[in-house]
């Protein structure tokens, strides 16, 4: 509480983190629940090779997206940690 500039920087860091988390969760939701569950019938009309697209998202695509999302988040957070000088050494 004494050093208000640090608190402000930390608040900004937290807000940036929340924005990043929210963006990632939108993608997370859209790929699994969106493409794989809610709009699966519509997407099944589209074919990619031997797959119907909605079915592919439900049994393959969403999992690939999950993996990519975590690595993306970890990479962006490491940058954010350094930018706000809150990283571990």
């Amino acid at each position, binding site marked *: *509480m*004494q*050093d208000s500039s*640090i*608190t402000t920087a*930390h608040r900004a*860091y*937290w807000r940036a*983190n929340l924005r990043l*988390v929210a963006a*990632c*969760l939108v993608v*997370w939701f859209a790929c*699994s*629940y969106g493409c*794989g*569950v*809610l709009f*699966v019938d519509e997407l*099944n009309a589209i074919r*990619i*090779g*031997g*797959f*119907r697209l909605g*079915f*592919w998202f*439900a*049994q*393959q695509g*969403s*999992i*690939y997206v*999950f*993996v990519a*999302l*975590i*690595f993306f*988040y*970890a990479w962006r*957070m*490491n940058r954010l*940690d350094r930018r706000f000088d*809150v*990283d*571990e*050494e």
Partner: protein
Amino acid sequence: MSLQALTYLVVGASFALYIGIAIWSRARTTGDFYVAGKHVSPIANGMATAADWMSAASFISMAGLIAHLGYDGSVYLMGWTGGYVLLALLLAPYLRKFGRFTVPEFIGDRYYSRAARIVAVICLIVISFTYVAGQMRGVGIVFSKFLEVDVTLGLIIGMGVVFTYAVLGGMKGITYTQVAQYCVLIFAYTVPAIFIAIQVTGNPVPQIAFGADVAGSGMALLDKLDDVVTSLGFNQYTAGTKSTIDVFCITMALMVGTAGLPHVIVRFFTVPRVRDARISAGYALLFIAILYTTAPAVGAMARLNLIETVQTGPVGAVDGNLEYAERPDWMRTWQATGLLAFEDLNGDGRIQYYNEANPAFADEAKAYGWQGNELVVDRDIMVLANPEIAGLPNWVIALVAAGGIAAALSTAAGLLLVISAAVSHDLIKGVIHPGISERGELLAGRVAAAFAILVAGYLGFDPPGWVAQVVAFAFGLAAASLFPAILLGIFFKRANREGAIAGMLTGLVFTYGYIEYYKGLFLKWAGAPWGENVASNWLFGISPEGIGVVGMCLNFAVAIAVSAMTAAPPRSVQSLVEQIRLPRTFDEGRL
């Protein structure tokens, strides 16, 4: 060398490896015992998490389950992977920063309440025992099937091995054993999958073969499968039968439940830094995804293989079905285990396999002279018999046995450790005897682990009828109790003791009550289940498997409302929340 001798050799060698690792990495401090001294590299932790997570059910049963369910099986694929995104983004880094040993410890400190900690311990123990009973049963079954020993003897051998490395090595021993177990199980899973993919489509990568043409037919695998299954009265493979809201809720309950499972969360306490916790979740999911993207491909190809083996000609043609006398060798072997059964209902000496429960197909079947489905196949065969169906060499079959055992042992060990940590650290040190010495606590941890193994062994030996049903309960409970409490503890500074306890109890009671009402868990003697478990009775059309989501929402709502109406948490707790949000540790005064 005979298959039997080879299997003993491969499984024996894998056991020697696990025990060797355990002796090399035995625990000397409570830090080693609970969180492997926080020295585990993110990649090693990723492998250990993957082995911890993928149980006998994932290894043996999942592909068969998906083969049976088709699109509806997607809830398990997405549900058991998507939770890692929640873990990586919302829980793991902050809990690692908190930097203690157990999940109940976080809840107790964050909500400055011994009662909250005890509620969390109770949730943890119920969830973990539920799980571990199924694992021990899996160990016994794999032993009896592949080593042809009695299920009970198999169980005792399995308990002995887990006992050695869990009690001796604690988290440190378990972690490095799980790394080895991951390598064994993923190798054992992918090798037969690659061979099957080549046989069915000519493409060696199962994930690509899944969308490729069936060799020699010019037709995509999934289209062919849709054709074949519908012509026998089954539901179309790529379409579902469950309502959208139910698929949505089950997937969500599994995802959130995954993120709330204590034995998964605690794995992220073992890495050195916050940034390692984030990336380690990525590695964990990557290693899990190798199996989880292979499983649906294996399921689809195995289903097609099975049907084409039986339905050799056009549906309805007199000679369109396999003659019983000419059934392949693998059918004979599995018939001996009772997992595959045949009964010639219409006495034509041929095998008819179709969906007799479909009323729309009944007339057609009658016209063909079929008098009921004649082949009953246990779903677990899909993975276990794959090497035989594909005609692979014996060492691959031996490897699958070792892989199945590795999957079951690694999950059981991880679960037993969180149970023992909850008892020795949260109950004994935290509540009953806070002055206990380091050595005393380590001893208590080992005794608790040994005791937990005995209880788990007993549950596996004589599983109460409800074991299979309570798995849904374990996920629902984790989703409705632990997950919201941890999440609010990190992201909602105003969340206080009163809110957390009220929220956890609400989520718990609601979820438990709903499942008990429709499925019956512990109150069978009092007449449960009271409601018929059909879609028209369910709340909003949500099945008991998915109801944890509603429990979670109730937990959030109650926790936030009660917190807002009662006193804010003390300053020290608020600054704890500030601290766990930042990777680096700052002095109290500067926050």
